[in-house]
């Protein structure tokens, strides 16, 4: 993809990323009879009993095995795949929470290190929204304190002058009432918590939002609200997004382009309508066949 995208038009580029994890749990070892072991169940969580030759050789778990993708400014790129395919690891590498074994993450063409080695501007540029809105917010802090913490971490992003007014503008931006500022996260509903998470990410005026299953834990009627909010925010703030989800329908609604991951590798990518409308890779077709469509349900029931 990096070849056919104008480099001037790329905000984020992930180049040949490879991430492995150590042999945690090796003390359990393999059973003498070869039936079942910690590794087997770990491999199985990736959706198969598969271990790559590299994995067998190094004994390390290869989470991401040579992934390249690019996100242009204003673009929403969907990253889909089953659990264990490496979607989240890619996301965490983008925001600098895991250190890749090789490959690089580039912002405006500049390679980024782990989060501690990034400049303030680089840290601010990519912000993450997590799946579980409750566990990603401190239950003991008020919403005002949560937002203020973001501003204290990145003083360059803090609004000059009256922070209360800025806080209310920010809450209004994500569709929350100003009165929410006084509440603690554990007093809020799941949808409100996710709006606060988004507000916290927006507080430092990022250019890229990394949304890791950001609507998956929400009730269906609330899910639609948050999707609408993300799309509106993209337009209002010219945000780019890396939108990770296992729900193909949701990704189809909001992503411009899509990459399908399986076992640490991108197996297919392209414009969302092309990939999901006429998939070329067998795995993508399998995912689409397994996905349930409301429109075809009636026919099955009548049989």
């Amino acid at each position, binding site marked *: 993809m990096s070849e056919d995208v104008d480099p001037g038009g790329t905000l984020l580029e992930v180049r040949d990323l490879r991430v492995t994890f150590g042999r945690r749990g090796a003390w359990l070892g393999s059973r003498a009879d070869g*039936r*079942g072991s910690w590794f*087997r*169940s770990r491999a*199985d*969580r990736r*959706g198969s009993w598969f271990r790559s030759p590299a994995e067998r050789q190094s004994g390390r778990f290869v989470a991401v095995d040579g992934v390249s993708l690019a996100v242009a400014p204003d673009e929403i790129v969907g990253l889909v795949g*089953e*659990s264990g395919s490496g979607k989240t690891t890619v996301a965490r590498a983008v925001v600098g929470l895991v250190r890749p074994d090789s490959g690089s993450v580039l912002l405006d063409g500049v390679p980024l290190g782990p989060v501690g080695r990034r400049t303030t501007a680089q840290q601010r540029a990519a912000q993450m929204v997590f799946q579980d809105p409750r566990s990603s917010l401190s239950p003991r802090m008020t919403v005002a304190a949560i937002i203020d913490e973001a501003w204290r971490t990145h003083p360059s992003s803090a609004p000059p002058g009256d922070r209360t007014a800025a806080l209310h503008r920010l809450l209004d931006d994500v569709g929350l009432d100003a009165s929410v500022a006084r509440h603690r996260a554990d007093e809020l*509903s*799941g*949808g*409100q918590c996710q709006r606060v998470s988004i507000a916290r990410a927006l507080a430092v005026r990022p250019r890229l939002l990394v949304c890791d299953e950001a609507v998956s834990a929400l*009730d*269906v*009627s*609330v*899910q*639609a*609200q948050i*999707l*609408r909010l993300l*799309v509106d925010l993209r337009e209002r703030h010219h945000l780019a997004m890396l939108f990770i989800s*296992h*729900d*193909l*329908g*949701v990704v*189809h*609604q*909001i992503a411009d382009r899509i990459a399908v991951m399986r076992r640490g590798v991108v197996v297919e990518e392209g414009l*969302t*309508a092309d990939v*999901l*409308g006429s998939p070329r890779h067998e795995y993508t077709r*399998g*995912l*689409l*066949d*397994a*996905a*349930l*469509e*409301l*429109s075809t*349900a*009636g026919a*099955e*029931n*009548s049989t």
Partner: protein
Amino acid sequence: MSRTRTSHPRPVSDATTGDPLLEVDGLVIDLPVAGGAIRVVDRVTFDIPPATTVGLIGESGSGKTMTANAMIGLLPNGAATGGELRWRGEDLLRASPARRRRLRGHEIAMIFQDPLAALNPTQAIGRQVGEILRRAGRPRAEVRQRVLELLELAGVPEPATRMRSYPHEFSGGMRQRAMIALALAGSPALLLADEPTTALDVTVQARILSLLRSIQQEQGLAMLLVSHDLRVVAHVAHQVVVMYAGRVAERGPTTAVLARPAHPYTRALVESVPAVRTRTALAHPLPGTPATPANRPPGCAFHPRCPLARDRCRTEEPEPRSVAPGRWAACHFAEELLSR
């Protein structure tokens, strides 16, 4: 499958008479909270006919899981119940604990969302699947044979080997298959499935759902499928019950309800489900958050989010009423919705 019926023949009359297996009649569940009680399930009424899958759908706090738990006697301590849960005419809410234990597993069985939490990590799968048979005093060889049959029926490959494995050695999908085998061991007439595929990947979900469908059809089981996912219910359930804030918003045949919802909440749910192969425009989202039994708006609980709400909805709570043959809805303007 006939072989599974040989050990526990089930009265055939159920399927022929058409009397409901389970009648939920005005079910009320109150949970104690500091300084009072919260009504988490409020006058819920529906039937589960024999050999039929009923989908129970709702968002968090809608009372769907509490309703299912009441059927198998898994309500939290201090829960007060009202109304009736009639199992073949017998009120389960007033049955003795001993009687309920007899029914549990043998007549009504349940599979849960998280099979890893529901299975015993220290026992091999085969032992757990066979427990109900061993306790019934069946000979060892017969129990083993039956466990093999059940695991095979649930689609566990190489059952003779895998029955000696432990839950942590199984993948999520295999664990759910083991749970299904376990639930079927007592040859129940009703299978309760609470979010059985929510924790699973889509490809695994599709396989488990088609397994549940085929078991339901082949065994002539009745099934209550509790889910927040309309797509899951749509693919498996013959009838659907939509719950909102502890009450039934709408119920009826799945195909009819999804094609023409008689309640604005159902309609919003249907509209919020995106298609996968084609791009669906973002649904116009409902405002606000789902009402919970703890903060139930007056009148119709759905009115603050309802696009059709009028003055009447703010004060007068709609009772579920018949709006078309086989269909009930708790909305003052159901006919208006249906005639659109």
